[in-house]
């Protein structure tokens, strides 16, 4: 099984409006990430640009539509599309989410939450194994941002993820913003979550902005909106992770209200500074 890896540098989620800026002035960018589903057309500008980008940068293919947590079989046609895309681009990483996004024939276009039980763990581990077999490569599984809990859950999310890693050999994509969002939404400690997280299996980190709202009782409810700069507490958590792990491939995601390239570039410069300063502390 192929186990390629992204460089332990900073990357950005690629947006078409940034193409010229990214090529002319990439700053510290070492890789780009794209949503796989946006490149499942046959041809045209999306593929021409992606080919050009991959000649300059490492590539992370990030799926948003495979619905790994679905309570039925995986969408084999979609898995074959991913296989073709992996064969075409040979990306340094493929990742997907611990979530479900389809039911029967219906695609719901959101990353929906799962109860954490022995039964769901077994099902998702089977799906991850099937994906890795179909793609002929190791994948990274991303921790979700969640807004509610399930009464039937018996496992902590960190134990659940560690269980899937143990059964499948997959890696993990640690989204630090999701850690902060979920911890806040469920009245828990983000630090405690990270202390329990199997960091040795992390192949990539995501950073993004979130929006603030409130729940039925007026308690804080953060939304994983990807439409603003990375928040200060998320930077602080990221620094503590890098002290423990050393430099890891770190992506800035900004999918809504996308800013001009220099703004996104400055976020990646900030992430690069953390990798350099705090990564050194890991070595020491």
């Amino acid at each position, binding site marked *: 099984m192929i186990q390629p890896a992204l460089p332990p540098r900073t990357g950005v989620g690629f947006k078409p409006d940034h193409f010229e800026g990214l090529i002319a002035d990439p700053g510290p960018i070492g890789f780009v990430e794209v949503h796989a*589903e*946006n490149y*499942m*057309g*046959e*041809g*045209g*500008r*999306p*593929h*021409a640009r992606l080919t050009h980008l991959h000649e300059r940068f490492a590539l992370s293919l990030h799926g*948003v*539509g*495979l*619905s790994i947590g*679905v*309570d039925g079989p995986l*969408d084999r046609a*979609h898995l074959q599309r991913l296989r073709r895309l992996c064969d075409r681009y040979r990306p340094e990483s493929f990742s997907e989410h611990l979530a*479900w*996004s*389809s*039911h*029967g*024939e*219906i*695609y*719901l*276009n*959101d990353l*929906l*939450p799962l*109860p954490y039980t022995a039964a769901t763990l077994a099902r998702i581990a089977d799906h991850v194994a099937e994906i890795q077999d179909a793609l002929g490569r190791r994948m990274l599984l991303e921790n979700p941002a969640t*807004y*509610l*809990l*399930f*009464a*039937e859950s018996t496992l902590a999310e960190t134990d659940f993820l560690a269980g899937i890693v143990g059964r499948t050999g997959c890696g993990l994509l640690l989204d630090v913003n999701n850690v902060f969002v979920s911890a806040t*939404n*469920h*009245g*828990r400690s983000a630090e405690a979550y990270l202390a329990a997280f199997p960091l040795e299996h992390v192949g990539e980190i995501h950073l993004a902005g979130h929006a603030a*709202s*409130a*729940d*039925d*009782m007026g*308690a804080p*409810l953060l*939304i994983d909106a990807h439409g603003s700069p990375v928040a200060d507490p998320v930077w602080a958590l990221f620094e503590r992770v890098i002290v423990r792990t050393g430099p890891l491939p770190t992506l800035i995601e900004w999918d809504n209200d996308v800013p001009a390239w220099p703004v996104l570039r400055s976020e990646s410069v900030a992430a690069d500074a953390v990798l350099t300063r705090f990564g050194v502390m890991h070595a020491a």
Partner: protein
Amino acid sequence: MSSDQASFARALLDPERQAPDGVTSHTHAAPAKRFAVYRNNVVVGLVDALATRFPAVQRIVGEEFFRAMAGVFVRAHPPRSPLMMDYGDDLPAFVETFAPAAELPYLADVARLEAARTRAFHAADAAPLPPAAFSALEPAELEALRLQFCPDIAIVRSTHPIVTIWAMNVDEAEPAPIEDWRGEDALVSREGFEVAVRRLPPGGAVFLANLRAGGTLAEAALAAMQETARFDLAENLAGLMSAQLVAGLIPAQVPAF
């Protein structure tokens, strides 16, 4: 109490339903607002995908009307595939039957034009023949010639001036009253990576459709002349050669497999 994805999915698409059984939170055992975040993500995300694909339709009816109409469509026709570039292929048929839009009878055809543009944008790359490839042919060869077309082409026929209306609503033409309200057939194709929309001359849609179905130039010209006396073969041939539509020529002596 346990949850299941079927009831979760039903509640996402039906605002009348309560949050599904089995969900909870640390503050409240029936977290309606928390469930509403997912419900909102699903509907807003899909409506946004339609707004991206159908900008002229949105401009014509206004954002508020468009988002309300798209919301009804999303709940009645949720996607069947995770490829958002394909979502809305059946929006034009929905618009045709959407009673509040009945006074805009051209709206569905404008939507068809926009749907065809997205398909052209993502179509397989092709190498269109240069116009010189045609001039190398003898006039006698032209008659029995068949053409192989690039994969990005679509023809959208309408009894309304949809190309004019579309162009005015994507800032490709100055908005102005349409004095001469007559049907327009649109040719959607790709030039390099840009999608081009052209107004076909009289009979042009039949001429092209016949050629794409495998007809010879003579057969296609005859069909177009039967459709309208205003069909001009020279004009249509010139358009065909300059518009980067043709990927290959199939002379008569080679069987057209």
